């Protein structure tokens, strides 16, 4: 049986940021996913969730287990990314000073996702939103 869950992420709520990733991790633990895979998925989903909270107007994270592995799709409504190549560069960020003071906005979010996933694709349209797909092989 294929497992699929959808989690909504609210924009702007810094206190709740990380809750969805924590729920996904608990779910993986119940399913007996190996710790090393859980760690990589946790990094990917947390970075995605933080991006949704900081940069988007809200979105969702889909979690699925497929024959290929753990499949994560992150879809948001929001400003989109004008220059994806730049956004993928370590250290490049458009975060505000307020969130930087909290330790976010290091410009490592997308690079961390790419590094931890076995497959990573990103598509974005300015003024519409961003769509990220990550696959983690088990």
């Amino acid at each position, binding site marked *: 049986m294929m497992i699929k869950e959808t989690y909504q992420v609210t924009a702007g709520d810094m206190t709740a940021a*990380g809750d969805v990733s924590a729920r996904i991790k608990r779910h993986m633990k119940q399913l007996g996913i190996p710790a090393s895979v859980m760690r990589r998925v946790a990094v990917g989903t*947390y970075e995605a969730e933080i991006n949704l909270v900081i940069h988007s107007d809200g979105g969702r994270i889909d979690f699925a287990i497929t024959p290929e592995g753990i499949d994560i799709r992150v879809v948001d409504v929001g400003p989109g990314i004008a220059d994806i190549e730049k956004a993928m560069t370590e250290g490049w960020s458009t975060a505000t000073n307020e969130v930087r003071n909290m*330790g976010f906005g290091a410009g490592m979010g997308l690079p961390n996702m790419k590094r931890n996933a076995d497959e990573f694709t990103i598509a974005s349209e300015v003024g519409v939103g961003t769509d990220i797909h990550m696959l983690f092989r088990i």
Partner: protein
Amino acid sequence: MKVSEFAALSGAKILMDEYEDREIACGYTCDLLSHVMGRGQADMAWITVQTHMNVIAVAALLDFACVIVPEKLPVDPAIVAKADEEGIVMLASEKTAYELVEILSKNGVPSAKKG
């Protein structure tokens, strides 16, 4: 080195009423959460001046042994309560991050490797 041994050696105060006295496998100090996400490993001791909810989220997601707050920085009781709920041990110290790293290092705790 156990968390309790580190507390005894450094004089750091354990902020939890009850906690699991875990073995510290490695250490890291950084205040940028994405760097910590990239570097963090299970059973790591993390020294940071950040004391908001997201610190607990990161520590719980990566299964850290403890979070150590240096330089007498205040920690909100709501953060400690959240740490307790997530099974994360928090410590507070008067020492600087540098001094705390020195104690970990001298007692054989290695630096976290790039994940």
